[in-house]
């Protein structure tokens, strides 16, 4: 991402303030407000697009994307377990984080694509929501085995009724039902302020990221390498899926970005309850301490370049 975008500068400000141990600290109520508005806005943006096309057309895409969300953690797990020598639960939990997605990374990508006038499939937020969940299930099975007697009800509750999913899917439904006309009255808050609110959110994300660096130092080099390497690999998988599904270059790049991003909202909460033996500091250090800044500062334009290469090499799909 062009490092001059003010959105990214806010992230860097937060990161620097955190690393310099400044007094700057946002109250958690502000974090909650800001992330709530972002999730609803992203959901509604996607929902408006859903209103324009029959949902049935999107079912195959949802299926393929779900498949991608199952494959990514299965790919990450052996690396973490056998190269990184993490214990089973930790490997499974980290894998789940990387199979799922980061809404903040998506939001920054949306800003980047807008500034570069790259268009992409506008129902992407639907795929974002779909991608949140499968990796969680894979992570749990990897950690506990298939025969584990997890109370399924509690798990489904945790997964489908977590704050992030409810707001994202709620936004999708509201956008879908209300449509572009209906949503206009609330556009000043949710759409006009989107960039500004994202800036505040990234300021906070910078502070949170800085707080992960301590664990990073403790858990060492492998986590850093994984936190950069895994997104690079995932991005190519995302490109493969996007190409196979006949997406535009922009859409393919966006899917690559989703694949490369690592969750830090839905997955940590679900893993903490369903795989308590996993050390949450490890996954957050990797996802927030390494992959999030890497994706935001370097990855987003890079994955787009990957997608452009692919399309110029192979031609537009089908």
């Amino acid at each position, binding site marked *: 991402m062009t490092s001059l975008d003010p959105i990214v500068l806010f992230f860097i400000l937060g990161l620097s303030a955190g690393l310099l141990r400044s007094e700057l600290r946002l109250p958690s109520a502000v*974090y909650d407000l800001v992330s709530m508005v972002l999730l609803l806005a992203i959901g509604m943006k996607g929902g408006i697009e859903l209103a324009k096309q029959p949902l049935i057309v999107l079912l195959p895409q949802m299926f393929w994307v779900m498949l991608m969300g199952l494959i990514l953690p299965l790919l990450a797990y052996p690396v973490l377990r056998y190269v990184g020598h993490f214990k089973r639960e930790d490997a499974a939990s980290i894998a789940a984080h990387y199979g799922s997605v980061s809404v903040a990374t998506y939001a920054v990508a949306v800003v980047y694509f807008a500034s570069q006038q790259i268009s992409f499939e506008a129902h992407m937020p639907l795929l974002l929501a779909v991608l949140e969940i499968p990796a969680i299930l894979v992570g749990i099975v990897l950690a506990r085995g298939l025969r584990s007697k997890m109370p399924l009800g*509690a798990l489904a509750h945790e997964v489908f009724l977590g704050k992030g999913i409810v707001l994202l899917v709620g936004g999708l439904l509201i956008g879908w039902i209300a449509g572009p006309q209906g949503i206009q009255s609330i556009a000043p808050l949710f759409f006009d302020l989107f960039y500004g609110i994202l800036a505040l959110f990234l300021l906070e994300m910078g502070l*949170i990221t800085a*707080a992960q660096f*301590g664990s990073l130092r403790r858990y060492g080099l492998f986590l850093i390498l994984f936190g950069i390497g895994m997104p690079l690999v995932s991005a190519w998988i995302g490109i493969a899926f996007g190409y196979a599904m006949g997406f535009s270059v922009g859409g393919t790049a966006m899917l690559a970005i989703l694949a490369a991003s690592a969750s830090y909202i839905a997955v940590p*909460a679900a893993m903490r309850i369903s795989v*308590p033996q996993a050390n949450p*500091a490890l996954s957050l250090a990797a996802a927030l301490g390494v992959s999030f800044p890497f994706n935001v500062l370097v990855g987003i334009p890079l994955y787009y370049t990957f997608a452009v290469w692919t399309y110029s090499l192979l031609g537009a799909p089908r």
Partner: protein
Amino acid sequence: MSPCTRKLLTIITEAALENVLLKDLDRLGAQGYTLSDARGKGHRGIRSSAWDASSNIRVEVVCNEVTAEAITAHLQANYYNDYAMILFVSDVTVLRPEKF
């Protein structure tokens, strides 16, 4: 309504555990509980309350000795190893002992 002695159990743990923990307390016989948000530092590092994953809660339960022991044993068996959690118990005098 003469004063009477009870146990005050204070649990400080990860906010992620809130729902599960409160259900457990109900089941183990606590007549009530009080929660507030907290931050802190312990063996599992700094928990800054900047966002969900790093928030603590502070739970207080006033109860009789048997319940206190049941809760303590349950927490120790189920959560002590995997979660940032401490627990301490003190004696308190309460009014209306039938409430606890």
